[in-house]
């Protein structure tokens, strides 16, 4: 039986607490204990990015993050992008560009896009493509995904 550790963190803007297994991944805790099914387990090896979440402003693979290290941190998942005013501009851009086929990679793509735009709203198309190297779409709909991120980053420029 694995050791339980109590952690406190900020999840999509709200303070939360949890008792988690010391060997758990952040992804397992978000999905199983908080019922946030947006971030997906696909490869489980950090290759595909379906589990991408943003922690303290940096995107990472939730499947490879020790859940114990969530303690005290600010965690954002795709569920947190929705605001009183509606969908996040990145989500709207994905819909408008038709950047979704089966949708399984979409939450990870959207979170990575959010990270890329927050870091550099003036990124070139080449930089955006490189920034998506850790996200795989097996429907191979990359063209429209890149179009959506270009549109969202244009809208984000001051």
């Amino acid at each position: 039986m694995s050791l339980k550790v109590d952690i406190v963190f900020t999840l999509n803007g709200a303070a939360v607490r949890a008792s988690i297994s010391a060997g758990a991944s952040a992804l397992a805790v978000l999905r199983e204990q908080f019922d946030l099914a947006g971030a997906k387990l696909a490869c489980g090896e950090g290759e595909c990015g379906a589990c991408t979440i943003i922690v303290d402003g940096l995107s990472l693979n939730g499947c490879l993050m020790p859940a114990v290290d969530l303690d005290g941190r600010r965690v954002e998942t795709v569920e947190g992008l929705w605001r009183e005013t509606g969908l996040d501009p990145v989500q709207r851009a994905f819909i408008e560009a038709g950047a979704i086929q089966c949708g399984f990679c979409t939450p990870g793509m959207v979170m990575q896009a959010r990270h890329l735009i927050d870091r550099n709203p003036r990124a070139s198309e080449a930089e955006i493509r490189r920034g998506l190297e850790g996200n795989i779409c097996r429907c191979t709909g990359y063209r429209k995904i890149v179009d959506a991120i270009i549109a969202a980053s244009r809208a984000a420029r001051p």
Partner: protein
Amino acid sequence: MVLPQQLNPGAFDDYVGATSVEAGVRALADGKGTPVAGGTDLWLQKDLGVKPSGSRLVNIRRIASLRGIEERGGRIRVGALATMTDVLDSDLLRRLAPVLPATADRFASVQIRNVATIGGNIVNASPAADFVVPLLCLDAEVELACWRGEKVATRRLPLAELLVGPGRTRREPSELLTSVHFATPPADFHAAFCKSGPRPALEIARVSLCLAGRRAARRLTCVRLALGAVAPTPVRCRQTENMLEGAALDEGTIRRALDSLESEIAPIDDVRSSAWYRRHLARTYLEEELRRVVEG
């Protein structure tokens, strides 16, 4: 759905979140600790069923003194917790040792670079560890800390001596790798890193190579050549370095250097590549890099 984390929750019976080197090495002192920072290697290996080295999980990621990249007295120190993103964004390294940001740029993906650390890349001791290859060319040393005589004791050893084989180093279970050090390269220092994998990103190298030295008039002096994924650890190729040292890089020298390199490495057949293809890649990369030196 059954998550791999539920199949292999890891047999940890204790957890320590360290915020100082002292707290970190005290938690490792009995040799029963498994240090973790980014987790990108450890969590993957754990999910694949590899038993962690110790049953006490020691989170070192919040030890602030192990961060940072600085130069002092002609030497550069990279803290063990510097992430690949920190290296990629470091103005100091871009100026003084640009081969390290160039290597970080070829490392995995944004998501992994944001959390994977230099220290982790070293102590994970993969034969294909990207970052170790240029660090060997910089003659890097590592600092290890442990708790001895009621205080933190440190020792330094060359990176090349730390590495023993796949997954094995001379780090004692009670020790924490705290930093990497190397002499600031001279202004005419040239170093280039290249690697091959199945796709441009997130590739575990089939072969990686770093050629370095002081460049003057189509020659290299202080030649350093290191390769990854062609031996049980990343290796320096001293015989080929000696052959290239100060030599005019004409066709004959290049040919002899490629033959020398091939005789000096011992690649294996595995799931990522075959030995003969690795030899071919090693020759090709060295030839390309030597021609780049010639062309200036």
